[in-house]
């Protein structure tokens, strides 16, 4: 186990280098000059463009730009973005908000998704099952920007149940509605995955055996079937955490949350390579750790899976 973890930690190094390089190359390859749009709809003065390109090493070839950047990163310096703010400082603030938002969305997924999945699974084909099917359908088929706008308008503006947008303090209450919106699509996945696996496992002989041996159905479901059904669900939640951190662009926009998704999006739009690469690198590291934890959880949920 210890050896496995060490090996995985070592493997992270090439992944981080690979990702940062790909991202760097992608930002580098984006069409559109980084200075375009800095001066409204007119072209920027040449002197401004020249100065700017020099400041961000834009005239160097890609590998050299990348090397210069990584040289700084290794020393713990993520550089300063186009707005003259240290990326590290910016990211710390934004990850704090987005991290909480993502964790709350995951909590929503686990609470609503897994319970809906269990209900639907043990009552397969009944009313509850169909109800879960139809409600998951709704969230799957309506794009997130519509769900967000509708909930914000009705629950926030009309009924006043939730704050309409998130202030810079980003309290838990303010983040609740955005977390529900953000988690809604994944709730559908979690519910369906739980249901399907549970149904499969419930029909398995070992559950029937357990029940025939006098184990209560509740215990059979809870102890055997459910535990066996959780691996795909945990896998999904694991990679979803990473996706929620960086992919909450639309939700962040609707609720005016100053988070990582919006930071990356804006970074892409204004061609702020340093900001984009910094944010994505941090994402990769978090994502890798979550993945490692998920892989270790496999062993806990199913002892037959070993990591030797």
């Amino acid at each position, binding site marked *: 186990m210890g050896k496995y973890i060490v090996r995985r930690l070592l493997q992270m190094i090439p992944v981080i280098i*690979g990702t940062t390089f790909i991202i760097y190359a992608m930002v580098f390859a984006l069409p559109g000059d980084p200075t375009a749009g800095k001066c409204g709809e007119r072209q920027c003065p040449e002197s401004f463009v020249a100065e700017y390109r020099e400041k961000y090493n834009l005239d160097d070839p890609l590998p050299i730009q990348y090397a210069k950047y990584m040289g700084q990163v290794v020393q713990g310096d993520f550089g300063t973005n186009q707005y003259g703010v240290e990326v590290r400082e910016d990211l710390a603030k934004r990850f704090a908000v987005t991290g909480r938002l993502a964790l709350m969305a995951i909590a929503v997924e686990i609470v609503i998704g897994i319970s809906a999945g269990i209900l639907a699974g043990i009552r397969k084909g009944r009313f509850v099952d169909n109800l879960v099917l139809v409600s998951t359908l709704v969230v799957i*088929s309506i794009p997130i920007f519509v769900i967000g706008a509708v909930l914000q308008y009705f629950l926030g503006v009309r009924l006043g149940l939730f704050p309409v947008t998130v202030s810079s303090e980003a309290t838990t209450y303010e983040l609740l509605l955005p977390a529900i919106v953000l988690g809604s699509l994944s709730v559908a996945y979690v519910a369906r995955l739980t249901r399907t*696996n549970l149904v499969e496992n419930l*029909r398995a002989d070992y559950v029937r055996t357990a029940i025939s041996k006098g184990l209560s159905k509740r215990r059979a479901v809870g102890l055997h079937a459910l535990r066996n059904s959780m691996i795909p669900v945990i*896998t999904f939640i694991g*990679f979803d955490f990473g996706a929620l951190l960086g992919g909450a662009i639309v939700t962040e926009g609707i609720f005016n949350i100053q988070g990582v998704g919006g930071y990356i999006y804006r970074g892409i739009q204004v061609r702020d390579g340093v900001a984009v690469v910094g944010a994505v690198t941090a994402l990769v590291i978090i994502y890798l750790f979550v993945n490692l934890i998920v892989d270790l959880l496999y062993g806990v949920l199913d002892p037959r899976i070993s990591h030797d």
Partner: protein
Amino acid sequence: MTEQAIVETAHSSDANPVGEARSLGADARRALARNPLFWISATMIFIFVLMAIWPSLFTNTDPTEAVLSQARERPNSEAWFGRDIQGYDIYARVIYGARASILVGVFTTLFTTTIGAALGITAAYFGGWTDSLISRVTDIFFAIPLLLGAILFMSAFPSSNDPYFVVVFKVVAAISLLGWPALTRLMRSSVMQVLPNDYVQAARALGASPWRIIRSHVIPNSLGPIIVVATINLGAYIALEATLSFLGIGLQPPVISWGVSINDAIVGLRTTPHMLFFPSLFLSLTVLAFIMLGDAVRDAYDPKTR
């Protein structure tokens, strides 16, 4: 998990009585034919596919005919679903939108699922450095924000006046490019759970070729989660296309799709919600049909449920 449970799991999964003459496929087909869910969903899908192939069968109205002076009209006898912000007939738009939406949904799902499943099985089955390599490459791709990839892709291949299928294919490629890693991981986890089972170990001991083990033991037993996710993905991809349009990088005119319609209608959320309702309804029905079909197929093919 108790020792007993493991043994039983293994046992249960291997429950097919020996000596049955019928093949897995024949069994599955028989089961499908008996399942009403299958027939309902198949009929719905047939209608949608027909709509995609031959829209003029359903409407005579030209979906590109804009009557701007009647924009945002509520449903009426002339325009059954009303008109949208450009004055297009929403009914005609919804019918003609089926093609692009279904193409995006089906092909993206097909690509991501195939790539994801193949890599996931390979990683889990062979383990060791193969697993490490595939898993780490997956990690790299997973970390790239879909949006960055999509913007880059769309701008690397800018389109003006592209033919229909090129426009659609670009969106398919943009989503597929970064959509497969999730499925790889899911498939890997699912296969890892199947591998320790006795029947797999037994087949290995008997010297069966990896391909044979994968095909006849691993795949049928590990498909459940990936089918669930793939059928949901199909709907989610159709909706994602709308989100891409919302961000300005989705399908482009002259292509008509449900996503584009939904995106165009969002401004009317508070005032003229019918513009939003109908494309969303059709999208929901399509997703419903595919999810039901997925359920039915999975039930039929999963050896554990028999």
